């Protein structure tokens, strides 16, 4: 007499969980796209949160007060990105970056996060990124 009751209770818990999972998973998926893929989606992509990956287009980086704008490209399509987040130290033109945010109705991408894409293989720094360059202009701890 008690067994069906117990099974019913277990089923109720599982049904509740399934219901939550159904909505939760679909709602919170963030797709990783390239500028071309985002353009193909057209209006359907507006205000949908995604991660957009590409290369920072040369000569496109502008710093206007706290607002940073640059163009992100995959060599086929280019999307203008706006963000108020401070860029990481090594952020520069020609670099692979990933931005998280969404396409705005005007066609620009508003980024809430800006990450530098790096592989797991550690490459030595290229010219211009050499740490010594940065280091030269700073006060040295040992000089004090």
């Amino acid at each position, binding site marked *: 007499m008690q067994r069906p009751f117990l099974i019913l209770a277990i089923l109720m818990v599982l049904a509740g969980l399934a219901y939550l999972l159904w909505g939760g998973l679909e709602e919170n998926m963030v797709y990783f796209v390239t500028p071309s893929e985002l353009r193909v989606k057209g209006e359907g992509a507006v205000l949908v949160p995604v991660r957009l990956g590409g290369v920072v287009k040369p000569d496109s980086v502008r710093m206007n007060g706290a607002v940073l704008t640059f163009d992100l490209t995959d060599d086929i399509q280019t999307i203008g990105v706006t963000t108020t987040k*401070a860029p990481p130290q090594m952020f520069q033109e020609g670099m692979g970056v990933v931005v998280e945010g969404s396409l705005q109705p005007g066609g620009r991408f508003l980024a809430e996060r800006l990450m530098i894409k790096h592989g797991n293989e550690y490459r030595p720094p290229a010219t211009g990124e050499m740490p010594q*360059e940065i280091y030269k202009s700073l006060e040295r701890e040992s000089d004090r």
Partner: protein
Amino acid sequence: MSPVVYLGNGAIALAIALSLFGILLFYASIRIGSPGAAPWAPAPWARAAHYLNFALMTAASLAMVYALLRDDFSVSYVAHVGSRETPRWISAISLWSSLEGSILLWVWVLAAYSALFVYLNRERETALFHWAGLILLVIQCFFYLLLALAANPFLPIDLPPLNGPGPNPLLQNHWLMAVHPPCLYIGYIGFSVPFALALSVLLSDRSDLSDLSDWTALARPWILFPWSFLSIAIVLGGWWSYAVLGWGGYWAWDPVENASFMPWLSATALLHSMMVQERRRLLPLWNISLAVLTFLLTILGTFLTRSGVLDSVHSFTESHVGPYFLVFISLALAVSLALLLWRGASLKGEGRIENLFSLEVLFLFNNLLFLSFLFVVFLGTLYPLVVEAIRGTRLSVGEPYFNQMTVPLTGMILLLMSVGWITPWGRGEPGRFFRQIRGPLLASLLISALFVLLGIRNPAVVILLFLSVLVFFVILFEALRHGGGSPRWGRRIAGLTAHIGALIVIVAVSLSSAYERDQEMALKKGEGVLFGGYRLTLDRVVAEEVPQRFEVKAVIQVERGGKPAGILSPQMNFYPNSREPIGSPAIRSSLLEDLYLTLIHFEKDGSSVSLRAMVSPVVSWIWVGGGVVMLGGLWSLISGRKKGGEGR
């Protein structure tokens, strides 16, 4: 060629041979049956294979540490992760800073567990223990083959380089790197023993067990020990992420974090359901399945973190171990399922549920909740991988999914906990239950009201706080009422301790994640900015050269309430083997709150910096709580060895 190369490869080859030899000998013992049935007993020789394997792997691991300390670049692993400039303590722990070395550490720990297990049970010459010894050798054999074929750290390098690149910069930043990985390994790998025991129960005739619940007594210490270490390892992993990565958080439902958490969830479910078998002779097959599941999840976790399917600091570089792990998981899963189906029917629980209001039913729901939790995490972790494999689109499941799902589950687990500690086995009495819950309920309502008055208004946080405080008072009243009188007191108070540790973690996580404040700020030299009750002033930007890297530090003066509160220097570290600098946050930690500063950007003339500043309440209690959970687990292990009487 370096002698380390000979020693390492020799040890691996010999260990493979010894494992095969031991497997045959254990099998022969099982076929022979009772000792004395044959003129020659093979089991002691099979156990000797275990001891020798442990000795060999100890030698191989120490030889590798020696080669790392001596910068012997003619050994492939040293050439891969070593460098002359690396501080020596980091060189020594580089044993686990990349794939090959970490697999070597894995087999060392596995061989240690196996040798200890067969040694402690050397007097028990029965099929059950021979099967367990055999299965442990099969698992070892897989890892030895993996070392030899896909992840050999002992390859010779004919023209050794003069210097190496050094370990991954992220892994040479913090003392926790010396602690978190070994703890995780002791946790993860330890679940091989209960797995071996579970399959042995299915494979043997169990003539040496007086009844099935003996299995739980046998397996209990071998589950509690790794469980305690896995608990602290997960927390230490969060702490490492907090202290090193500079994003200010400690947990992001990242697949590698989930990989460590999933076996913990199933092992925790097992620790509870085992008690049902021990006390009520129910769920024998279920417990065996959970032991199998926990082991499979550790191998799955290793596959996820080590094969390179994920982008992570744990996946090191492109590696070839993925297919090996997939084959191993599939085989282990197939064999376990076949055995469960084939032999499982013989494992009938003898007891039955007498009443719905009883501890055994509550434990049933405990298992349901923990497994639901596990399923939620499993789905969120593997779904993106499956979609990518099938459709080729890359996606990630956001943190909100995990939080939406796990917060209610945590609440239900807390509710169950509060009821469970005052519900007896067999049949509970509602009248007595209400008398026991009245006091704690009143106390926790009052305290929650106080929290609300103090400004904590987030409904989810208030509910979790209320339930946590309720459980705390139930446990406290329970401890006060019983004193040292009850026969199972030692084990019970150890269990209470572990639960209090869990409560500390839950409360600290909910408060710190709901009430953290963060802000990005630009600071000019000499200028002060107010944030979260602190005044932050940039004093200067300095650079310093140390052997393995050089560092740029923003020296920030911190004032609180007009009084100086120390100096924080978030820094960026530039490594010769890395294009991007690796940040080191600076943290001012107290029991009430942490001030956390990350250097995002600095002007090359040192005139200004961009910082990310965070204030998170009670974060440090998470690490404390993790330690308390571990203590509770180990305490329970010690006190469980004495046979207690019935009743409570």
